[in-house]
């Protein structure tokens, strides 16, 4: 399968002569747009061509060509393949590219990420600050010439392990306190942000002490987190309150940032597979799939039938347990302390038993390989899956329905709150259940089917209200649809091989780019992979739904009560492993 483009039907270079050229590099597709014309082209694509959903914005450092590139992937919410377009800038500081936030507000956090990690200045961006690293960080770590502390080699495998066999433990290489570099003259002990109002807080809406009826009122600034039970991890939101009403809000993240993508570029293609498990650690099966899809596109390798079916079975089981846990944890956020969560954990336990039997691990599955799977289903596992799918899970989903859906307290807490209109949801690049709850029937399994999803009968679940209750209903119904897919997949599961060719630890990946995307339980999970023909990817980017879905967090919270913030964050369904990468 080639990377989808509309090159045949849409000739951008004829529409914008001189400013847009087709990307002619071997293995590449799409268009190269002149920086000065970017906004014009983007507006044309959105308004006239219907590419309303900006899925992903990625920076790429082409150090040998002295170029920095920003890659945009836009899709139509009505379905079909997307369009890639790119802006190139000479690799001289400052590197400047116009911001597309005025066209697609969903680029907000992503452009901040590129600024942080690549040092590309987006002119016209409303709030260009570092996002994943902290304010005092030195340099832009994803640049190819930026080396981490105790850097060893550009690419694994490292020779010191074999054949040299020099034994050194991690702590000898990485003494505590000595593994960070700072800007010259920077003393982390003495550093305080010179003016705390300056950086983060001025990005919030300015507030003035108002005088009404002669009584002085003031807005309050509250830091929720980074250690806050509502955030399911280390995540912080800075909020300005007028009484209990949220006036302005900014998410602060990166506490779990480990530069996953830099690690990914040091790794060989295969070595990245277990690392993807650690993104959204609830759904390692889906994570594996997205990555396998991208690399399979580059390699041009087909997946045997049986493996395709098992992939669907695993991904849908994963979706069910994700939505179950979401429901349980959501109720925790609302204050129903742990009863629904523990009910959900029981079903998840049974699903994880299956993952453990198949993949060897409950959460870190590492089960997919390029062109197939690591191993076939062990004896007895298919029976267990059938037991669950045919005899248990449907009843349990109904039980959740009985337990929660009509509960008056739940309805009162969720209904009508944090409404997101379909227009806003698309503009902010929301994907997954949150987008569908706003009434946009966009599901990649249907919009651009991957694997064998085009063979199954299922409904794309939508609701129209766009509020928190709608998000709950969408997920509840999606579990039923997943069971529907599972029943068909189990019935159709053929015998046969589970991988194309011999399993290989060093795969040959032809040069080029590929974007593999799947409908993960949390939204669109995409992997943008560039190979230059070497054993390691030149670029490995993860489009994390948890991260991009937060772009609309402020929009969803402003005007509401602070007490609802906890629940709103819950309804987005974030996982910090994926958010901070």
């Amino acid at each position, binding site marked *: 399968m080639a990377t989808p483009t509309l090159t045949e039907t849409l000739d951008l270079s004829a529409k914008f002569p001189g400013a847009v050229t087709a990307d002619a590099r071997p293995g590449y597709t799409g268009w190269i747009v002149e920086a000065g014309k970017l906004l014009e082209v983007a507006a044309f694509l959105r308004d006239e061509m219907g590419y309303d959903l900006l899925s992903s914005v990625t920076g790429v450092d082409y150090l040998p060509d002295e170029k920095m590139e920003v890659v945009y992937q836009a899709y139509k919410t009505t379905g079909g393949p997307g369009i890639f377009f790119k802006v190139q800038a000479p690799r001289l500081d400052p590197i400047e590219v116009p911001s597309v936030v005025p066209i697609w507000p969903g680029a907000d956090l992503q452009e901040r990420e590129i600024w942080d990690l690549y040092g590309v200045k987006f002119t016209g961006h409303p709030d260009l600050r570092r996002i994943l690293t902290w304010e005092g960080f030195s340099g832009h770590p994803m640049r190819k010439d930026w080396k981490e502390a105790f850097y060893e080699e550009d690419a694994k495998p490292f020779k010191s392990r074999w054949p040299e066999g020099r034994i050194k433990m991690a702590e000898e290489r990485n003494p505590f306190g000595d593994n960070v570099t700072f800007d010259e003259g920077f003393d982390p002990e003495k550093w305080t942000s010179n003016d705390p109002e300056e950086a983060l807080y001025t990005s919030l809406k300015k507030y003035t002490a108002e005088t009404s009826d002669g009584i002085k009122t003031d807005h309050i600034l509250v830091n929720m987190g980074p250690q806050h039970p509502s955030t399911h991890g280390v995540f912080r939101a800075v909020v300005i309150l007028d009484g209990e009403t949220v006036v302005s809000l900014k998410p602060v993240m990166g506490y779990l940032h480990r530069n996953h993508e830099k690690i990914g570029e040091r790794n060989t293609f295969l070595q990245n597979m277990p690392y993807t498990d650690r993104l959204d650690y609830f759904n390692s099966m889906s994570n594996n799939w997205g990555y396998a899809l991208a690399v399979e596109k580059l390699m041009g390798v087909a997946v045997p039938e049986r493996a395709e079916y098992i992939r669907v079975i695993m991904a849908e089981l994963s979706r069910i347990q994700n939505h179950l846990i979401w429901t349980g944890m959501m109720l925790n956020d609302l204050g129903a302390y742990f009863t629904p969560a523990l009910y959900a954990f029981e079903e998840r*336990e049974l699903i994880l038993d299956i993952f453990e039997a198949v993949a060897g*691990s409950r959460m870190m599955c590492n089960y997919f390989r390029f062109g197939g799977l690591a191993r076939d289903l062990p004896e007895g596992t298919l029976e267990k899956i059938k037991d669950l799918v045919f005899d*248990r899970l449907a009843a349990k989903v109904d039980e959740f329905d009985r337990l929660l859906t*009509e509960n008056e307290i*739940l309805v009162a807490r969720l209904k009508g709150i944090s409404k997101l209109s379909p227009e806003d949801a698309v503009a902010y690049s929301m994907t997954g259940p949150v987008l569908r709850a706003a009434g946009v029937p966009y599901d990649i399994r249907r919009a651009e089917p991957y694997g064998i999803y085009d063979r199954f009968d299922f409904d794309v679940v939508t609701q129209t209200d766009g509020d928190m209750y709608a998000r709950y209903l969408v997920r509840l119904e999606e579990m039923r649809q997943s069971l529907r897919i599972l029943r068909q997949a189990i019935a159709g599961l053929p015998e046969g091989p589970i991988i194309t060719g011999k399993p290989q630890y060093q795969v040959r990946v032809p040069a080029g780019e590929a974007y593999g995307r799947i409908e993960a339980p949390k939204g669109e999970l995409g992997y943008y992979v560039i190979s230059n023909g070497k054993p390691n990817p030149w670029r490995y980017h993860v489009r994390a739904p948890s991260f991009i879905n937060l772009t609309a967090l402020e929009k969803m919270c402003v005007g509401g009560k602070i007490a609802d913030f906890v629940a709103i964050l819950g309804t987005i369904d974030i996982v910090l492993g994926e958010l901070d990468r």
Partner: protein
Amino acid sequence: MNGKGLLKGLSVTAKRFFDSYLEDVRWLGKKATPEKIAFRSSKDARGTFTVQFPEEKLPVPEEFRYIPFLVYDEAEGSKEIRCTSCGICAKVCPPQCIWIVRTNDPETGKPVPQPAEFYIDADICMNCGLCAEYCPFDAIKMDHDYEIASYHRNVFNLEKLMKPASYYAEIRPHNNQREEEARAAKAAAKAAAAAAKAE
């Protein structure tokens, strides 16, 4: 707002509440017997899902993987390690936590297919299982022993890593059988080829 939905929900909770006691009575006095555990992980599981670790333990499936170990064959009292220090596991290991020192023949200086030293930094190991998956000699396998918490760093050396083939056969009977058959077939093919050549 008439509380009907609430009551409906509470009926679920009540059923669960009674179930947990009924199940407790049913398994009264029985610790984690295999039947109890099989029931707990079946489609009919009800009541309490948890077990009292460490008194009760859930069995792990054959494919379960934890820190790798090196397989040796027992031959007349000596331990014959299968590893040839080919380095594939060290190369494939994602966090690069395998360190191998090769053996050189003291007289000729040529490499000998056997590791002089073999270390796995078990605190770095991400239990991915790739080493075991790609070792061409069935020499490194994933263990089932997950209780390795300690007060010190877990850097496993050759001595700590070596476990007999019989142990491997015990924890992974199906895999072991498959591999033994494959090895036997390969040996037979080799013998046949040699015989054909000799003629």
